[in-house]
């Protein structure tokens, strides 16, 4: 559960706080509270909504504290409602997890090369040096990653030539 939600919740919190360290503090805080006092939720989807709601409430309270406003009085188990802005933030965090999951399903080498190329933005030569492989095999791994992802995320790829590989 922790690993499944951690990054999405941090991303979501960061949308409010624009501070990745603070976002991680908030999320750790939420998991600690859940650990100390596991809410009685029957379905996983309820737990998910609950986690997002706890993160949201803490973020809003942090912002309010900074602005010297009254804190939100929240009952965390009450019916959770999202406004439009919050909804799109959640969709964003959830969608990124699934895209990342597709990347993490790539074979090990192809995944390493793809991450270094697309996320760390290293050149082919730099990747080759770092992984101690030839530039040609960097190219092969990239191609492989690209074709697998093209299949996995068909619509995302159909509109643009993504991942300028």
């Amino acid at each position: 559960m922790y690993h499944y939600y951690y990054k999405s919740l941090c991303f979501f919190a960061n949308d409010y706080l624009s501070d990745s360290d603070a976002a991680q503090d908030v999320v750790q805080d939420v998991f600690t509270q859940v650990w100390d006092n596991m809410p009685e939720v029957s379905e996983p989807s309820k737990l998910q909504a609950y986690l997002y709601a706890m993160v949201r409430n803490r973020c809003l309270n942090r912002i309010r504290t900074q602005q010297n406003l009254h804190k939100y009085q929240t009952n965390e188990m009450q019916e959770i409602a999202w406004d439009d802005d919050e909804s799109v933030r959640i969709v964003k965090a959830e969608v990124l997890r699934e895209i990342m999951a597709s990347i993490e399903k790539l074979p090990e080498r192809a995944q390493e090369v793809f991450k270094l190329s697309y996320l760390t933005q290293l050149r082919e030569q730099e990747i080759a040096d770092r992984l101690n492989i030839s530039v040609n095999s960097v190219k092969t791994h990239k191609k492989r990653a690209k074709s697998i992802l093209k299949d996995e995320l068909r619509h995302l790829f159909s509109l643009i030539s993504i991942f300028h590989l």
Partner: protein
Amino acid sequence: MDVFKLSALVVKYLRGNCDAQAQAKVEEWKAIKPANRNFIDDIHDSHLLGEKLKLYNSFDSNKAWGQFVITNKLKRNNTIYMQPLLKVASIIVLLISIGGVLYFLNTMREQPQQLTESSIQPGTSNAVLVVDNQSITLSDTVNVILEDKSELIASISNGQINYNNEVSSLLEMTVKVPIKSEYQFVLSDGTKVWMNAGSKVTFAHPFKGNTRSIKAEGEVYLEVAKDATRPFVVELPNNNSIEVLGTQFNVKAYPEEHLQKTVLVEGSVLWKSNNGKERLMEPGQLLLASNLDNGIEVKVVDVYPYIAWKNGYFAYENERLEDIMTSLSRWYGVTVTYQDEVIKDLHFSMDVKRYEHLNDILKMLEVTEKIYFTINGSEIIINKHN
């Protein structure tokens, strides 16, 4: 629509495997608000998507989990474990590796009673310090002054070693922890060492030159004091080693076992094999090194079961019975005999206190009705239920 159902729909849409109706729903959602449309447009932009994924991936869940475990999971001593009923419930039976489904129809069968008689005590805090051919028992009540050529080397009070860091000569010290024992002490640089039963740590006092080097065998958990100028190196059996830069990790490397297991909790370590292979480990990773073919494998794991022993628990997650029993035998000073080889490969999960009598733990394993134990002095015989 529920926001999580919507998210799932958007994912399907991006994967290109949703039907016309679902697609229409996503298009409809896109049209409601500019923010929705912007989001969909943004993730179709290679550069913007890359930026988002980079941020997303910068949140390090392994590292955070390591910290979470240390601050939360390990301090829960007095909660659920005090209740015997819950304790039994915490045993989860896993994997029936014998083909087919087993039915336990003969509930009238007589249960073996052997477990109620003798009670086997757990290990205690106990070690021996060997310096210059002198052996000193390190228990909670021992107070000794160690001298060499009338120079104070170290004093031992309440079983803990206090070093004289100004010492002029160099001495080799070895801390040995026998079977049925565990021990915790601090090295002269402030590094904390937890040693499990049947382990040995050797180090020079003071550390020579600009590395802090120790030799370890058995199972050791280290919380290495930060010192960027002097790397900390752990030499393992079979000439493997671990180079450390301020960190917490567990290494299990008993010479008689062919697998060495290193688990990194926090920080970073460079693991080096005898034939020049190196792996830079990240928190949450388990490195398995085979002494048979020198092969190594790295996996991401929940670190808790690997370090539970140092906090007084036996925790196993879907572990082979033989591996569980090997640890138990070191801690309780018993030998184990298997009535049938298949028993060794049964898998169990458990999370119990290490300071229980062995019988209590065996009884819990018996609740699973897969196996039962008979005790003959210090020999445990494991039998299979038919």
